[in-house]
């Protein structure tokens, strides 16, 4: 079967569109959102969609676009990307459930995804709670490339008990 999409954006649109026919909604999250907001400065080959639909329904929709289950992922022989549907709800650190505030128009499809501010919070959560500095760099890159609300992020960081690490984030951002 031919490659369903050559870009992450294109695939995100396809994976949004096809399950939507069955009434399944899904929110794009994780590293691909970073790729989109940083113009591929950080490339991710995994598309993570949060959906409350059960796996059998998702699997049926994915098979229509040529993706087969491979462990917890969905893969396509001609596509460099893998797609996953991690268990929800959508969360930003300790905060949940979260309503995704981002929208990306790809052709006639509107992809639901984290907003730039939420994307920064999503990446910072890994830095705050797992000391993952790859994600710190990604948060900095998104904050540099997009308009984000630093007040919202600061308040959230405070709720996460991570005010010192938020300052580290600000210092890396200033360095750029």
């Amino acid at each position, binding site marked *: 079967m031919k490659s369903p999409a050559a870009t992450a954006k294109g695939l995100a649109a396809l994976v949004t569109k096809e399950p939507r026919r069955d009434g399944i909604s899904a929110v794009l999250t994780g590293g691909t959102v970073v790729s989109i907001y940083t113009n591929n400065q950080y490339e991710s080959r995994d598309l993570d969609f949060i959906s409350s639909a059960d796996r059998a329904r998702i699997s049926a929709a994915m098979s229509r676009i040529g993706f087969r289950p491979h462990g*917890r992922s969905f893969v396509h022989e001609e596509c460099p990307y893998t797609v996953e549907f991690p268990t929800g709800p959508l969360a930003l650190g300790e905060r949940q459930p979260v309503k995704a505030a981002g929208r990306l128009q790809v052709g006639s499809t509107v992809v639901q995804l984290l907003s730039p501010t939420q994307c920064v919070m999503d990446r910072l959560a890994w830095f705050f709670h797992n000391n993952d*500095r790859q994600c710190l*760099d990604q948060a900095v890159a998104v904050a540099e490339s997009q308009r984000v609300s630093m007040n919202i992020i600061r308040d959230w960081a405070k709720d996460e008990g991570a005010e010192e690490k938020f300052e*580290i984030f600000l*210092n890396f951002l200033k360095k750029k």
Partner: protein
Amino acid sequence: MLDSLFGNKTSERVLLYLQNYGEGYPTEIARNFGIAQSQVQKQLTRLEQGGIVASQLSGRMRNYRLNPRWPYLKQLSSLLEKALLSLPRDETMSYYRRRTRPRRPGKKL
């Protein structure tokens, strides 16, 4: 950069590692920098005797972190953080950007 202050290069690297990753086993710290584990262990023992780092047994391994009860921890962390911020990019990428967030089981690498 801070090796004169901390006594030697290994000591500096050990402290930067613990600030960066939050914790570490001597084997993984040594592997991270490509240096002998005995060198790392020597510095960790010295720093623990001085109360600067603290350790905890985890199975048969000892896991180290900056001592949360050391009175100058905040100042030390701040200094180490400034040093991390000032490192050349290639050094940062080589030693201080290992993935530490979990990977879902069965995920293709």
